[in-house]
């Protein structure tokens, strides 16, 4: 929109909003740069130097956070790869191959998009208890693979691909799987990137399921671990350390976001269209 608006009201409102947005983040950072003892007396000291990195070096010595980080990384990567694989295969099947019941089944999958977490989580918890899958990586990975969003995205994407490419491959003697693997899949990289980053982020940030499934502290994901730190805060480590943990925990996800944000934005744009 052509904004010739040097509108001062809008400008100051935007500035206020930006400050309100950034303030909590800045505050957290400042708190993390102060020693615990000092903060115990008063947090106002965070507003002025000197600052120290002692909390961060404490974290580096504190093994639990790294364990949590590892768990999150393993689970998020596994779910991302799993979703990409399953969704691409299913997406191609729904988009390009005809089989009995295809359209009806696809609609059922789409309806799955509307199912909220709480409608399935109790029964899933029961199921996984019976299968002894709690406090395992499998227990944390499997539920994420069922999300219909990926199938929806990949189906739309494959549907939009020009048929001529497939027909050329067909005439070149390629089997269906080869056509999928050598031709269509490589060309679907943008959609894969969007789906991948979206899945990675949402898996990393998951709270409720890991909370009730990974109850041993060495199976905590980073998200759950940070919550447990917060709950135990009073009797354990100290405010500075806690806030450093928050910064530390934000690090990986913000880095991933910055690197891949192009795909996220592209995905949102395509969704809005």
């Amino acid at each position: 929109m052509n904004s010739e608006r040097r509108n001062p009201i809008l400008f100051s409102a935007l500035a206020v909003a930006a400050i309100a947005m950034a303030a909590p983040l800045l505050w957290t950072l400042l708190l993390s740069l102060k020693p615990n003892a000092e903060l115990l007396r008063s947090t106002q000291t965070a507003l002025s130097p000197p600052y120290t990195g002692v909390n961060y070096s404490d974290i580096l010595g504190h093994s639990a956070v790294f364990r949590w980080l590892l768990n999150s990384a393993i689970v998020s990567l596994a779910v991302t790869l799993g979703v990409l694989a399953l969704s691409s295969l299913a997406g191609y099947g729904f988009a390009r191959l005809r089989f009995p019941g295809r359209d009806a089944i696809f609609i059922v999958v789409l309806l799955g998009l509307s199912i909220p977490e709480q409608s399935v989580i109790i029964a899933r918890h029961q199921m996984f208890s019976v299968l002894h899958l709690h406090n395992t990586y499998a227990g944390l990975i499997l539920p994420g693979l069922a999300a219909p969003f990926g199938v929806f995205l990949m189906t739309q994407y494959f549907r939009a691909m020009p048929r001529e490419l497939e027909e050329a491959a067909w005439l070149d003697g390629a089997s269906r799987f080869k056509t999928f693997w050598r031709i269509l899949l490589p060309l679907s990289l943008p959609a894969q990137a969007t789906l991948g980053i979206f899945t990675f982020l949402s898996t990393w940030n998951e709270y409720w399921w890991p909370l009730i499934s990974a109850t041993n502290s060495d199976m905590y994901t980073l998200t759950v671990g940070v919550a447990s730190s917060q709950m135990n805060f009073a009797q354990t480590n100290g405010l500075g350390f806690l806030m450093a943990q928050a910064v530390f925990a934000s690090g990986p996800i913000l880095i991933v976001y910055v690197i891949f944000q192009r795909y996220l934005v592209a995905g949102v744009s395509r969704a809005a269209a």
Partner: protein
Amino acid sequence: MTQARRDEARSGMLFVAPYLLVFAALLVYPLLSGMWLSLHKADLFGGSQFIASENYSRLFHDAVFLRSVRNTVWFVAMTVPVLTVAGLVLALALNDRSRRSALLRGLFFCSSVLSVTIVTLIWRMVLVPDGGLIADLLARMGLSPIAFLSDPRLALPAIALTTIWWCIGLPMMLFIAALQQVPRDLYEAAALDNAGWWRTLLRITLPAIRRTAIVVVVIETILQFQLFGQAQILTLGGPNNASLPIVLFIYQVGFQRWDIGYAAAASEILFCIILLAALTQYFAARNPRRA
């Protein structure tokens, strides 16, 4: 010929089978199982009795549950309109190619990338009367601190504020994408028709992004009805259930008291509420074109 068609069908089924297996086992089965569960009274030792709709009638008389429904509806009313309008305003203000806008967009979106546990940790230290950011600022101004999270009237609004800070990115991005889809010619025609800034906004921009606005409202409604982490971590639903949302109720009943059937029933009711709210909004907004 039929052979080719049969081969295609077989291939097709092989391609979708892996996902459908996972879908059926981990989405469909638990969904149906949950519904079945809601008709039972399950106890800690694995036994269960079929009690039909007794869980549901118990819920309708459960003061805590009803409180949680009221809280959740109130919460949605506080967050969804603000998220939608603020998201739109930000999108309008930041929809250009300048470096500054790109940075600001990044700022407003980055909070959405953080997990609920990090967000609550950050905001705990903003809201807490003893050492929180707001408390410190109030102290500097000579005012006494406000105990947001332990005040029954302020707890839920404080959570709402946290949530708005957290979730503003998505509506903003959706609106920006929608704004960029509006054809330039519309604006140029309006300029030639001497339309001012406000009129262009009202008559051209807003109608053009109507569909996205509906989507934003529906999505945010669905999301915010499922409020859980912020309440659980910041207030544990207190004080005195003043900030207890439905999902936290389900969590407490199902995973702390292990009254699983009862919790399942509550989750089915929530599902219905969400569906109702979403469908109502969708159909109400899709009214036939006014002239």
